[in-house]
């Protein structure tokens, strides 16, 4: 009897350690990736001045006359496409979340929720393909452009991809708003619409902001869809109708043929590092907002 309890105690301990190990593994992987990125990208700056890297708008590592490594255009394009996607996805996502949690009858919710989950599971190549054959020509037609491969196209596609994240997390946030708030608002004579817009959504705002930040994190790191649909011209974008090339697309296009251990190779890792830092910051901010919101609750 005694032995058995001792045994189960040891077992308990081992299981605990096992899970600890799993947790640590994730941290190790993250640190490992960061180390690798840092290690592989630092040699870039032996040949490229760090000032040029962060201030030049010309990215042309395989130049005919002279090579140049400037990522300003790439960063700007990435931000432009991402912000564009949010302009499209945030109102739609919040409206959808509000409908799902506040208005939709149970039956509609039963159909809509799994549908949104399926949307999250569509591979990005498929979305990119849609961008080429459907959204591109549509944009060209609506705005009377010669071609639909531009920043807007990328924004729409990324918006579609960020939607599921934004919807499901915002919905949780809106659901978490105490019923008392709504009841109080309704009792004071506010209409359902006024309650939703002036009480429920503001009360869930920090959760919604976190949802938006996470959606943004998803959008900023997406490669395939933007690579296929934005035209990939490395020029500094003149307008939302310019073809743009994002940080991710640059890595996606060039890493396949670059000779290993050259400045070009290292510089692609440096681009990756910049991207990593960008998404890392976004995640930290969204984490911080989410924490605040949980505290407030």
């Amino acid at each position: 009897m005694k032995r058995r309890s001792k045994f189960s105690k040891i077992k308990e301990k081992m299981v605990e350690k096992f899970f600890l190990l799993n947790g640590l593994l994730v941290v190790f992987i993250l640190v490992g990736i960061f180390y690798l990125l840092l290690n592989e990208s630092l040699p870039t700056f032996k040949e490229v001045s760090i000032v040029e890297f962060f201030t030049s708008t010309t990215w042309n590592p395989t130049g005919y006359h002279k090579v140049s490594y400037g990522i300003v255009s790439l960063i700007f394009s990435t931000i432009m496409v991402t912000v564009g996607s949010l302009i499209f996805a945030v109102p739609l996502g919040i409206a959808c979340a509000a409908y799902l949690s506040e208005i939709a009858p149970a039956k509609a919710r039963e159909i809509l929720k799994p549908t949104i989950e399926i949307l999250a599971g569509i591979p990005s190549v498929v979305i990119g393909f849609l961008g080429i054959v459907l959204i591109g020509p549509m944009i060209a037609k609506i705005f009377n452009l010669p071609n639909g491969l531009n920043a807007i196209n990328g924004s729409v596609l990324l918006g579609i991809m960020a939607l599921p994240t934004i919807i499901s997390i915002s919905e949780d946030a809106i659901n978490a708003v105490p019923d008392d708030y709504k009841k109080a608002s309704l009792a004071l004579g506010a209409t359902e619409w006024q309650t939703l817009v002036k009480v429920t959504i503001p009360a869930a705002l920090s959760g919604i902001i976190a949802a938006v930040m996470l959606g943004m994190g998803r959008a900023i790191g997406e490669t395939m869809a933007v690579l296929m649909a934005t035209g990939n011209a490395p020029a500094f974008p003149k307008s939302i109708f310019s073809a743009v090339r994002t940080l991710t697309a640059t890595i996606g296009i060039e890493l396949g043929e670059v000779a290993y251990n050259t400045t070009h190779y290292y510089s692609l890792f440096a681009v990756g590092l910049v991207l990593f830092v960008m998404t890392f910051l976004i995640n930290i901010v969204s984490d911080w907002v989410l924490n605040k919101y949980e505290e407030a609750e």
Partner: protein
Amino acid sequence: MSKKVFRSIILVLTIFVFLVGCGRAPEGQDGGREAKSAYIQIKGSDTSVNLSQMWAEEYMNNNEGVSISVTGGGSGTGIAAIINNKVDIANSSRDIKDSEKQQAEDNGVEIVEIAVAMDGLSVITNANNPVKNLTVEEIGKIFKGEISNWKEVGGPDLTINTYGRQSNSGTYVYFRDNVLNGDYTAEMKRMNGNAQLVEAVKADESGIGYVGIGYVVKDGKTVEGLNILDVNGASPLVAENVKTGAYPLARPLYQYTNGKPTGAVLDLIKYQLSDKGQELAVREGFYPVTEEYSKRNNKNLGQ
């Protein structure tokens, strides 16, 4: 208790060793990849990927037991693969660079070059564009961004939209080195493949692009909605122009192998260069290997 734990540790170790073993196995095969193997891997140029696929299918039909896989990805990708000894044949629409040759040598790979067909690299515009003839210099200036309106070359008052390929494309490099002698304008859209480029120019009245002739000519006819420009007055649609070099953008399509090809790879290459194989290339819109390159092929194949 210890027995149980011990047993599970043994189990985990066994699985681990097994997995590691599995991971290693193909590596060993890779090192000893021989041309004789009835499995041939071809990778590279998007310009010649369709042609290469057709050859492979024909060859497989007539040679049971041989299986050939053909993938695109661009000449740069194919050459990188042959340098790393990952494929049997690399398709390329440009010459291998000296630096790449050096890398191959460092990896113990001896590059052998065979020209398998000729391409009249076509400069294409929308069918509604009245401009039918440009000089190499004009085309170069357009893609460098120095000419930005069609009226400068005798066309309508329209801003020129340039469409090109990405830097892993052999056509991108060939065109830059032989037409531009400089850098592409940063405004040029970098398309993912030849088909996407062709579709874009079809839809864009102000567009201009470049693509291997196999993508715009089928059975001797130009694909609808497009116009293939004469360059320096010569059309790539005339076989004679490509043969004599009167068409300035005539170029060979290469295959690179590691060492002199033997066995099935040699047999496949021989088939491609045979009358039957070259006929197929013509059907795909390309041209037969010229005499000059034939001689070089014979030398490189050691015949």
